[in-house]
C-alpha cells in the first residue's frame, strides 16, 4: 500500500496559514501569492500527485485537498483585506494634514479666471428685468406632491391634460403622488397659500427654478431644465395687463426692436390662456429657418388665473384676479447666445464653460 500524498496535509496547511499570518505588507502578500496558492504552490503539486491514486481514493483525497485549498485561500483573502486596510490607513496617516494649521497667506494660489454658468447668468438677467418691473423673486422645491404640481393647478388625477407634461414620478407614498416638478407653477400655489394664510395679498412675483421632464434629451430639450414663471394676484388685473407686462418684459430683455404677441393656447390653470411669441431674434421678423418663415418664435405660455385655481388656494375671485406666465430660462439663453445644441450645457466641457462672463 502506497502512502497517501496527503499524509502531511494538516501540517502543510498549518504551515501555509502560518506563513500567511506572517505576511506583513501587501507587497509581500502579492509576491508570496504564487507560492501559496498558485501553480507552483504545494497545494498544486499535491493536486497533480492525486492522479496516481485509485478512483475512490482519488475522490476522497480530492475533496480533502479542495477543503484545504479553500481554507488557505480564504485566509489569504482575509489577510489581503486586512493588509489593504492597514496600507490605506498607513498612507492616510502619512498624508494627514490638520487643516486648522493652514496659513492661508502661504498657500500657492495661481491666478485663474472663473466663469459663471450660462443658466445662472441668464436667470440673473431675467430676475433683474423683473425686479425692475416691481416683481419679487421666489424659490420653491424641486420635489413636489401631485397636489401642488397638478391638482391645485386644475389638473385632476387621471386627466388627459397631465399627458402634456412628461412626468417623473418619485417612489414615495402611493403611486404617482410625488413628482419631480414639471414646471415652476407649484411655487405659485405655495405663494398664494402663504399669502392667504398670512393675509399678505397682493402678489407680484417671479419664480425661477429647475424642473424635470421625462423627455429624451436633444438639441432643444434637456431632462433637467430651468423655467421662470411670473404671478400677479391683485385687484382689477386683466388680460390686458398680462399682455402689457409681457410686452414690457420682451423689450426690456431682448431689446427695443423685439416685440411680443399673444395667441390663444391652452393651460388648465389659466383662462383665457395664451402662448406668447416674440420677434425672431435671428431675422428680426423677416422670416428665416429658425422661425419657420413666420418672423416669430414661441417663447412661453401665459394667461389669466383660472377661477378654479383661485378657489383651490382659497382666494376670493370676486375681489382678486391675476395672471401667470412662464418660459424657459435655458431657451432664452439659447436664443440670445445662438446655442445650437442645448446638451452643451450639461457636458461641462471647460472650453464651452470658459466662454461665459
Amino acid at each position, binding site marked *: 500500500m502506497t502512502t497517501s500524498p496527503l499524509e502531511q496535509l494538516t501540517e502543510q496547511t498549518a504551515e501555509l496559514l502560518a506563513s500567511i499570518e506572517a505576511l506583513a505588507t501587501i507587497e509581500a502578500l502579492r509576491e508570496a501569492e504564487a507560492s501559496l496558492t498558485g501553480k507552483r504552490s504545494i497545494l498544486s503539486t499535491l493536486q497533480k500527485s492525486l492522479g496516481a491514486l485509485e478512483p475512490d481514493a482519488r475522490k476522497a483525497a480530492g475533496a480533502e485537498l479542495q477543503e484545504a485549498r479553500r481554507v488557505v485561500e480564504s485566509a489569504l483573502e482575509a489577510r489581503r483585506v486586512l493588509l489593504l486596510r492597514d496600507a490605506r490607513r498607513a498612507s492616510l496617516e502619512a498624508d494627514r494634514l490638520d487643516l486648522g494649521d493652514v496659513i492661508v497667506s502661504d498657500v500657492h494660489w495661481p491666478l485663474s479666471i472663473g466663469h459663471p454658468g450660462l443658466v445662472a447668468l441668464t436667470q440673473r438677467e431675467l430676475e433683474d428685468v423683473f425686479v425692475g418691473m416691481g416683481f419679487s423673486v421666489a424659490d420653491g422645491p424641486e420635489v413636489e406632491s401631485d397636489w401642488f404640481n397638478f391638482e391645485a393647478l386644475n389638473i385632476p388625477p387621471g386627466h388627459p391634460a397631465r399627458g402634456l407634461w412628461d412626468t417623473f414620478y418619485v417612489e414615495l407614498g402611493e403611486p404617482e403622488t410625488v413628482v419631480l416638478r414639471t414646471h415652476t407653477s407649484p411655487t405659485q400655489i405655495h405663494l398664494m397659500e402663504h399669502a392667504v394664510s398670512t393675509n399678505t395679498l397682493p402678489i407680484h412675483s417671479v419664480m425661477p427654478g429647475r424642473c424635470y421632464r421625462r423627455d429624451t434629451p436633444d438639441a432643444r430639450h434637456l431632462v433637467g431644465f430651468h423655467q421662470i414663471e411670473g404671478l400677479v394676484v391683485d385687484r382689477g388685473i386683466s388680460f390686458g395687463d398680462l399682455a402689457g407686462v409681457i*410686452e414690457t418684459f420682451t423689450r426690456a430683455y431682448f431689446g427695443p426692436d423685439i416685440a411680443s404677441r399673444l395667441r390663444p393656447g391652452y393651460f388648465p390653470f389659466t383662462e383665457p390662456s395664451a402662448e406668447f411669441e416674440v420677434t425672431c431674434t435671428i431675422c428680426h421678423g423677416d422670416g428665416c429657418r429658425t422661425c419657420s418663415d413666420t418672423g416669430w418664435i414661441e417663447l412661453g405660455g401665459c394667461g389669466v388665473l383660472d377661477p378654479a385655481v383661485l378657489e383651490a388656494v382659497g382666494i376670493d375671485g370676486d375681489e382678486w384676479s391675476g395672471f401667470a406666465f412662464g418660459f424657459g430660462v435655458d431657451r432664452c439663453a439659447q436664443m440670445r447666445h445662438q446655442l445650437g445644441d442645448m446638451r452643451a450645457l450639461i457636458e461641462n466641457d471647460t472650453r464651452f464653460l470658459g466662454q461665459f462672463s
Partner: protein
Amino acid sequence: MKISLTWLREFVDLDESPDELREILDDLGLVVEGVQHVGEGLRDVVVARVEEIRAIEGADRVRLVVVDAGDGPLEIVCGATNFAVGNFVPLAPVGAVLPGGFVIAERTMRGVTSHGMLCSPRELELNDDHQGLMVLDELIEPRVGEGLLEALKIAPDVIFDISVEVNRPDAWSVEGVARDLATRLRRPLRAPSIASPNDAGSSDTFAAAGIDDPDLCGRLTVSVLRNVKVASSPSWVAQRLRNAGMRPISNVVDASNLVMLELGQPTHPYDAAHVAKRTLRARRARAGETLTTLDGVERELAKSGRGLGDTGEDCVIVDGDDRVLGLAGVMGGAASEISADTTDVLLEAAYFDPMTIARSSKRHALRSEASNRFERGVDPHLALRAAARFVEILTQSVPELSWLSNPLDVWGDVPTPPTISLRDADVERLLGVPIARDEVTTLLTGLGFTVKKKKQHLKVTAPSRRLDVREGALGRADVIEEVARLYSYRRLPRHSPTWPEPGFLTARQQLRRHVRDVVVNAGVTEAWTPTLGSDADFDLVHPGIARVRVTNPLASDESVLRATMITGLVRAWAKNFERGTGDVMLGEFGVVFQHPSATTEPRMTRGGAGGTLTLALPSENERLTIVLARPEDDASSAVALWDVLAQRLGLADVVVRSSNEPPRGLHPTRTAALVDRASGALLGYVGEVDAELVNAITVAPPLRRLGLLDVDLDALADPTLATRASMFVSVPSRYPSAVLDLAFVTPRSINAGDLAHALRQSSELVEEVTLFDVYEGPTLSEGTRSLAYNVRLSSEERTLSEDEVARGRAALLETAASLGAVLR
C-alpha cells in the same frame, strides 16, 4: 391634425392665400405647425413598371432597377427594396423638378448611371411615408407612362398641419376648424350632405342595443346597414385619407375614418354576422375578462389601476352572448372586424365618459384616433348625424346600400350644457376692454352658443359639443376666452399695470448671487451636473443609505436623486482631464436630496387625490460644491478658497476644525468641518476628495489631489447658524501698536483657530492675532507642534507703556497655558 384646404372650402368660402389662412388659424389658437403643398411639382412624375432588378457590384445599399415608362427601358439606381419586378412605381425622369425644387439629373454611382429617380411618398410630398417607394399597384389600372397626378386622380391641394389644444375637441375636425374660420371671417358655415334611412324596416327588428352602465357610456347608437359590398373607396375618399396621413383600407373602414376626420365623431363598424344576436351593449368590464384587440395583443380587462386616480375601470362593448367585442372608444377586437365577405354592418356611434376612456387608454398603453377624441370629449349629440354622413359616403361606392329606419339610440348619462350669465362688466373685467354686446353675441352664436339677451346680462348656453365649458364663474371665464379668441387677442389693448410694492430679491437670493460672484472671481468655473444618477454612484458616497428613486427613469443609471454633487463634479472634471482641459476649479450650485426615512424632520406636505393626504417628501439641501483640480491644488488651496469666501461674506468666526470622521467621499485625514463658533453649526466641509472615490470614477486614475469645498447654503443663509460680523465698523487706533511674535508648543488636539480666538479674547488690548508659522519636528515632543502668532496690542487712548505691553503679554501666555499651549 392634417386638414386640406379643398376640404375646408366645402364648409366655408375661403379666398385667402395659404399664408393668410395660416395667420388666421394661428391667431385662432389653431396653430399651424406645417403647410404642405400636395401635388405641386409632380407634373413631371410618371408611372413606370419595374422590369428588372440587378445588384450593382461593390454596392450593398443600392441596386440597379430597369423600368419602363413608355419610352423603353431606363436604368435607375435605387436604394429602396420594398418592390418587385412587375410593380408600378413613380418615376421622376431626368429634368423633373420635385416638390421643394429638387432637380433630377443624371448621376453616376459605382460606375452605373442613373437616369432619373424612383420616389417614396415623402419625396413626392404626398405623405410622410419614407419606408420605401410608393408602390402604385393599388391603382385600378395603372398605365405605364401616365402622369402620376392623373393616375392618382390627385388635384393639387394645400395641407395644414394643425395642432389642436386638448380643451378643444370640438375643433378636432374639418368642420370644427371651418366653424372657427367662418365665425372669425363672418361667413356662413355649410353642412355636408347626409343620408336618411332608406329602408322601411325598423332597426329593432334586426338588431338590439343597450347600456348597462350609464355612467361609462352616455349614448350608444347602432345603425343597421344591409347590402354592404366591401370594396376599395372612391379615389377622392382615398386621397383625403392619404392627405390626412391615413392609409385607405376599404370603403367601410375609410368611410368611418373620413367621418371622424370631417365631423370629429369616431364610429365603429361591426360585421353583423359575427355579433351574437346582433346585439351591442356597453358595460363595465369584469375582472378576469380579456380581449384581443385589433393590434393582436391580448389584454386583461378591469385590472386594478396603478396610477393616481385610476379606478381600474374599462368600458367594453359586448354582444348578445355577453362576449367582449371591443374596448369601448379605444380599439375593437378582431372577431367582429369588417372583412371582404361582410354584407351586414352594425355601425356604432357613441358617447363615452372621457375620463373612463383616458384611464383605459393610459392603463392599456393603447392610443388610437378614437381614444384621443373620446378622452377629450366628443359631442354626445353628434352620433346619428355622423352615422348619416357615413352612409352618405358609403353609398357612393355601394349604391344599393340600405339603412334601416329608426336607428337604435340608447342614452345613459351625458353632461348638460351649462348656461352662464354674462354681464358686460364680466367681459371688461377679465379682458381689460369692453366688447359690445352685439359683437359678443355674434361671435358666440357663430360658435353655436345660444345667446339670449336679458336686460342686465346675456344668458349664454353652450352647445353640446363644448364639453370644455364649465358651470358658473368657471364657465364665465371659458366663455369670455372664446369671445377673446374669436375677437383676436391681438386686438385687445395692452396695459402696463403698476403697484406700490417694490421688486426685490430675498436675502437667500442675494446671498446666492454674492457667493457665486465671490467664487467665480476667485477663479471657479460653474458646472451643471445631473440630478439623476445611478445606484452605483450613490453607493460610492452613501452605501446602504435609503435613496430617493424615480419610478420611471429614462435609463436605469438615471434613477436616483443625488445626495451629493461631489460625484458628478469629479466625473465632469475627469472628462475634462482626459481631454487635457482639467486644470480648473469646477463648482456647482445645486440641490441634493435625502430620503424622508433618513432624516429626523422630513418635509411634510399635502398630496394625493384632493390633497387630503399628508406626505413626507425628500428633504432638499442647497449646496455649493467646488472641486479644486489645478495642478498644485490640495486641501490647503480649498482652505484658502474658503477663507476668501468667509471673509467676503463677513462671517464673524468660522473655525476650520479637522474632523476625525468626515463623510464618505472626503479624504479621511485631510478634511475639516467648517464650524460657526457662535452657533456651533456645521456650515460645510473643506479638504480633499477621497482618492478612492476618484479612482472609482475615473478610467485612468490621475495622480492628482483634488481639493474640495462643500458648503451648505441653507445653513449659510440662516443668520442664526452662520453668524455675521457686526455691521458696525471700528476705526483703528491712531496710536502705534505693539507687535509681538509668540510661538507656542501646542498639543495637536488644540485647533490653531481656537487658540487664536482665545488669544484675541485674552485682554482688551489685543487688536489682532494672526497665525504665521507652524512647525513640527524632532525637537518637539510627540503629539505637539509649534504655532507662531503675530499679535498686535494697542489702545485707543494712548501709546501703550512697557508695563501695559507686559501685562498684555502675560494675559496672552496665561490664556494659552489654560489651553495647554506653552511658550516655546
